[in-house]
């Protein structure tokens, strides 16, 4: 399946080619109070991604059943895939997992702290740190990202809940979670021991994200064939693993990762910008991503600041493999035209675009112009613009000094 329509693809996660159950629950902690598992508000399929692509559409019944904690991508290594053989260990990590878990509004004694949950993992965002291994990992013989862009998880049951610790308002539980894991349209039911830690918002936690937190951690192992992957044969078993280990660590927040807190930005525009990034970055699908980006740019063709945000995101967002500089040029120049060359942020983007093309003189020129229009910006907004000018100037000077030294020699 191509990711061109990966938002439609969302529901495909529920397709089950085969379903195998493994109870890999390790012995649970024997701490403190024993809780019985409460009745969950489990969905029967993994909900689709929201418009932004950065969380899922939580079913109405689950919204009513409790507090929703959205998985926060990009703050930690969320998922580790380990395959171990006598000769090789391949560890792939992903920090672009999106989804949610649901907890009761108020956890009373005897309640399960986890009522429901589901998450989606964009396969293209798995990285081994080795380009050749990445290519194998994403390729047709392995996870086949072109056909199966996502792995999905759906919680189907929670049991064996025990309160593990209490430190101030931080409450930790151990529990066993049953999940349907779908890889390449093959679904396996796995049971995994997990820890569930509730951490209310503090002035300290807000550096990571806004909102109250839940931290969900667990791990499990499954044979590769249950995930639709080829089992190693006699010849390949030294280098190809029979079992896959998954380690999960999700920081989840009551604040959606696509929450827009800037009143100058329209919510719908923000969601579309995030959808664009989800495609070009999380799914590494430049064809679908820039097609959507061009459509979105047309929608905001008369909105300079929105166009500038789109251009800037291509230049600045981490983990975009293909940065389409022609796209950036078209978008940022239109933004600059609309804003009459007097908008500091847009001039800052233009400077960066020139810089990325190696045009240092122009980068300095536009960065200097940006610094002439800082009035009205908050200090935290103005600072990176000034820093960019200093950095481009320093690099230009170093280049000129180097050239002079060369000519002197």
């Amino acid at each position: 399946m191509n990711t061109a329509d990966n938002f439609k693809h969302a529901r495909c996660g529920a397709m089950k080619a085969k379903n195998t159950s493994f109870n890999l629950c390790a012995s649970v902690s024997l701490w403190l109070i024993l809780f019985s598992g409460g009745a969950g508000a489990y969905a029967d399929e993994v909900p689709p991604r929201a418009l932004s692509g950065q969380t899922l559409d939580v079913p109405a019944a689950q919204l009513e059943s409790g507090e929703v904690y959205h998985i926060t991508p990009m703050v930690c290594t969320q998922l580790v895939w380990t395959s171990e053989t006598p000769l090789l260990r391949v560890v792939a990590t992903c920090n672009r997992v999106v989804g949610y878990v649901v907890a009761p509004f108020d956890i009373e004694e005897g309640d399960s702290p986890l009522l429901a949950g589901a998450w989606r993992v964009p396969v293209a965002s798995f990285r081994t740190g080795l380009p050749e291994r990445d290519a194998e990992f994403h390729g047709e013989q392995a996870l086949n990202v072109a056909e199966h862009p996502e792995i999905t998880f759906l919680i189907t049951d929670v049991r064996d809940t025990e309160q593990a610790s209490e430190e101030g308002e931080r409450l930790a539980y151990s529990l066993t979670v049953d999940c349907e894991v779908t890889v390449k349209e093959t679904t396996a039911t796995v049971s995994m021991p997990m820890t569930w830690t509730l951490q209310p918002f503090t002035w300290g936690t807000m550096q990571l994200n806004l909102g109250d937190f839940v931290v969900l951690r667990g791990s499990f192992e499954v044979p590769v064939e249950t995930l639709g992957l080829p089992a190693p044969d006699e010849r390949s078993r030294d280098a190809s693993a029979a079992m896959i280990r998954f380690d999960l660590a999700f920081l989840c927040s009551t604040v959606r990762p696509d929450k827009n807190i800037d009143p100058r930005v329209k919510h719908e525009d923000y969601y579309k910008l995030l959808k664009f990034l989800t495609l070009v970055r999380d799914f590494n699908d430049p064809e679908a991503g820039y097609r959507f980006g061009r459509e979105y740019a047309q929608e905001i063709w008369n909105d300079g600041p929105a166009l500038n945000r789109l251009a800037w995101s291509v230049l600045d967002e981490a983990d975009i493999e293909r940065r389409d500089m022609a796209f950036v040029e078209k978008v940022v120049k239109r933004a600059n035209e609309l804003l009459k060359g007097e908008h500091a942020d847009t001039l800052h983007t233009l400077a960066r675009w020139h810089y990325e093309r190696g045009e240092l003189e122009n980068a300095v020129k536009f960065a200097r112009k940006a610094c002439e229009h800082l009035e009205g910006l908050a200090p935290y907004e103005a600072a990176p613009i000034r820093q960019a000018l200093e950095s481009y100037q320093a690099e230009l000077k170093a280049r000129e000094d180097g050239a002079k030294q060369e000519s002197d020699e």
Partner: protein
Amino acid sequence: MRRDSWCAVAALTLVTFGSATTTAQWTQWGGPNRDFTCAVGKLADTWPDDGPPVVWSHSFASGHSTIIVDGERLYTMCRRGDQDAIVALNIADGEIVWETRYDAPTVEGMQLEFGPGPHSTPLIVGDRLFAVGAMVYFHCLDKHDGKILWAKQLADELNASNMRRGYGASPIAYNDLVILNTGGGEAGLTAFRQDTGEIAWQSETFGPGYSSPVLVRFNEEDHLVVALGPDRLGIDPATGKTRWRTTVDSQSFGIMATPLWIPPNKLFCSAGYGGGSRLFELKHADGEYTLEELWHYRKMQVVHGTMARVDNIIYGSSHGSFGPAFLMGINLDKGKPIWRKRGVAKANVLHADGHLLILDEQGYLILATPHEKGIDIHAKAKVLEEKSWTAPTLIGTRLYLRDNHTIKCLDLGQEKITTEAQRHREEVGVKS
């Protein structure tokens, strides 16, 4: 409100309460008793699809200052360029009667993405109007013509903090004094003579705060009750001396909501950003006052919205720590919510004769009836645009409200007023 009338309110309970709320006055933040509870005329049970009838509506400059009412005039504040403006409008048609502007440039380092205010609500006492802008310029005006009687720049004179997002607490009157939060410098609170602006007293040093003070009567004494940073305080309003003080956890530092006094001796405070809601009991023994915490429920976190009490339930919009907003009712006896509801954005709540009027930040106005298990919503209509953070003002059946673009008056009365939309429906034979 003058001290003598305030004491009468406290002492004579319902009779005086009735008289205070039927004089069609709303001369300060929070209404007659600063608790967002008011008497009203007979409200309509529901509204047409397009909302209650609009009596008048005008475009208006930005600001979050609420609208106060004194006789035939409305008063509020708005922002025009680098100036603050104090404005008087005609109650009948919303036309501006006078407007007094003064320079109030923003200060470097302020975080004003939600606007430069003004956030505070003016106060009327007798012929004078008192108003504070976001940059902490404090003015006393003649309410009849807007003439400036005296003015102070409290950031310069008292080192009062603008709290980076702009000063937000609303002034309160006591006898011949007007009292303000002035934290950040020397004194947490300062009382000024109403006639001259001369400083009458200054309290101890407390942090700055957005939460507006209230006056209560307990143990036959008046107490100025205020939440400043983590401190929950009772101050002698005549002298500024601290009578009682309790310090809560640092998560409640960012309190903005006005405390609610529950006679005879309970105090309800709610704070966002992890703070939560607390109920306190004020006690007096052996000549000492103490404020004892009865319960703390962390998940009701009213940020800057208003709250209202109906019997032993307090209703408010819990926005938590930037998460989704829940409209909630919390039982004061149990310290637990009786109910909570998604689908209403961060909101202000007003209690009007058994009804709740809820205006959310997206501009939806809700008419509801509270009961022991929750609320019944009778009507909901979009009446303003985005960022409707200003608490509405209700006089009789007229609701005065504004956002950053518009000021308007709606009629919530039972008597049918035919709107254009209704007329159109009737013409084309569509049932309303």
